[in-house]
Every structure is written in structure tokens, then in C-alpha cells.
């Protein structure tokens, strides 16, 4: 996906007045949730499909979960396709992933 491209960065600052980059989300053809939520999810196209800073993979169902703003450790995200509640964590190598919160 090219959400990380400069064109995708529309402004700085999220909803809670921090300095995060924000992204314009386009529809990705993902149909497994009601219309209003569809642009927040997409199917990952294999291991070479790089994630943007506003994307993490759901460890339960492997769908990519997207946000209007870049993720930071501690962010709560929801995977609607599999109904999982997740938290963004930073791994030792600096990458961001999501852990399930039961």
C-alpha cells in the first residue's frame, strides 16, 4: 500500500492534539465489514506487502488494521472482521505490532 507516501500525509495532528501524521484512507476493496468501516481494513497481499506507519496486522485473522493517524505504542485498535480488541506494542527491533487484549 502507498499510504506512507507523501501524498497520503495530509496533515499533522490527530484527534487528541498530538503531533502524529495523519492519512487520507481510500477504499481498499475490503467488503467484510459494514460500509462505514471498510476503509479501516484491508487484506495483506503477502509478506512483501509493506505496512505503512498507520497500519498493523491483526494476529488473530491477519487482516491489516488501518487508522487515520500513525500508530504509537499503547494505542488501542479494534479488528472488526474478527471482533478482536488489540493494543499496539513496539517490538525489540522497533517495529510496531498488535497484541490481543482479552
Amino acid at each position, binding site marked *: 500500500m502507498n499510504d506512507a507516501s507523501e501524498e497520503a500525509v495530509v496533515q499533522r495532528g490527530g*484527534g487528541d492534539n498530538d503531533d502524529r501524521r495523519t492519512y487520507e484512507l481510500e477504499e481498499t476493496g475490503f*467488503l467484510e*465489514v459494514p460500509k462505514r468501516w471498510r476503509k479501516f481494513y484491508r487484506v495483506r497481499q503477502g509478506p512483501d506487502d509493506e505496512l505503512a506507519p498507520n497500519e498493523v496486522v491483526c494476529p*488473530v485473522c491477519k487482516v491489516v488494521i488501518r487508522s487515520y493517524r500513525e500508530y504509537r505504542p499503547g494505542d488501542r485498535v*479494534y479488528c472488526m472482521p*474478527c471482533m478482536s480488541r488489540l493494543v499496539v506494542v513496539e517490538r525489540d527491533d522497533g517495529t510496531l505490532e498488535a497484541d490481543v487484549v482479552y
Partner: protein
Amino acid sequence: MTEPTTWAQEPHLLNEGEFLREVHSFNFWFEAVSGYLEERPFGYAPDLTDGPMDPVQRDRLITTLCNYCVGEAAALEASSGLIRLAPNHHSRVFLATQVVDEARHLEVFLRRIEELGINDPETEVRIRANAGLEEFRRRLLDLVDRGDWDAADFAQNVLLESMEDTVFRFHADTADPITKEILNGVVADERRHLGFGENDLGRRLSNDPDGQRRLSAVRSEMDPLVLGAFEGVYRDLGIRREDHPKLGRHYLDAVERLGLTR
């Protein structure tokens, strides 16, 4: 044209109660399945047609689909029984949607078998059913009959659904166009089912080491039945033996997250 994204549209802003109410609702299910099933009366677009298929390949596909039917019939019977055992109304409403999903899966696989030249698909399923999968079905229904919500939820929505999800996805990548489209629709449903199972059990087991030990025992009893049954499917799909363990990884990851490692 997509409307501009705003912070307020984020699903991640919902509080946990709102999120669960949304995703467990009938309306969520209805709008979701409408997205990928509309105008696909038997799981695929009616203008799709079968190309030439080698007779051996066709026969293997029929056997594979027959075993998918065994799994789907087990899930249909079990999920309908689980409605009575569910711990709350959210779960009952969700399970009602799962019952419909499982019935649809069974129907589309039976139709596909018929399209491949079998006049009596129900009888064919009985003839070609894998013995291990049949035994799994009996034990799953026994857990439901005994009223054991946690064990039945695990066996159906974690063990069976994870394995089906992995195999169906793999199969869809190599299948003929009609079977591929049917499988993609089923996989979309499976995401909800396996997510429901893992999240429900995760909440219930997080502070219950006794429950984790008990389900670990259930797991070691039932694992070999499903894993053995899918070995046969892998053979029919032409998957190399060295790739088989990779296909179990999704399930094993879920088991580890739930603390059910032996």
C-alpha cells in the same frame, strides 16, 4: 468517491461496550455479508463457468469438498446447540449468525459437489468422509450435549475454525475460479467465527489456570483428529509434506495466546 477521512470516523474510538455491541449485532453481520455475498446466490457470481478439469483432479476435489461438508455440518449442529449454553445475549445473537453462516457453507459445498457430477451429494459425503473428522464431530457434539461451553467453544471456534480458515485460504489460492470464489466467501465468515472463539475464551481463561489446564487436556485429545483429517486434505490438494507444519501455525499461535500449550 471515498469521503475524506476524519478522526471522528475511527472505529478505534468506540468504547469496548460499543464495539462489542456493534460487532455482535445482527445488523453488523447483515451489512458485512451483503458486501461479499450479494448477487452470489451459491457463493459465486452466476456468470462464472467451469473450464476443463482433469478427471483425477475432479475426483480429488469432490473428496476434499465432501470433507469440508463434514466439518461444516459439525459446526452447524454444534453452533446451534451452543446457543443454549452461551453465557450472555451478545453471544447468543452472534451464534445465531454463525448458525446461518454454517448452513450456507454446507449448502454451497453440497451444490458444488453436485455441479461436479455427483447426483446424490449427501450420500457421497458419507462415503468419502474422513474417519478422524467424523470422530471429531461426535466428540464435539458430545461436549455440546454435556453442556461444556468452554470446551465446545474451543473445539469448534478455535480448533476447527482455525484449521478450516488456513486450509480454505490455501486451497483458494490454487482452486478453479468457482471453488475459489466460494472459498473466499467462506473464509470471510470464518474470520468472525474464530475471532469470537478466541476472544470469548481469552476473556474467560485469562485468570483461570485450572480452566487453561482443563482445556489443554481437551486440546490434546482433539488435536490429532482434526490435524490428521486435514493431512488427507493436504494430500488431495497436492501440498508438499514439508509445508504441512506451516499450515498448523495459525492454530498453534492461537493456542499459545490462550495459554493452552502442553
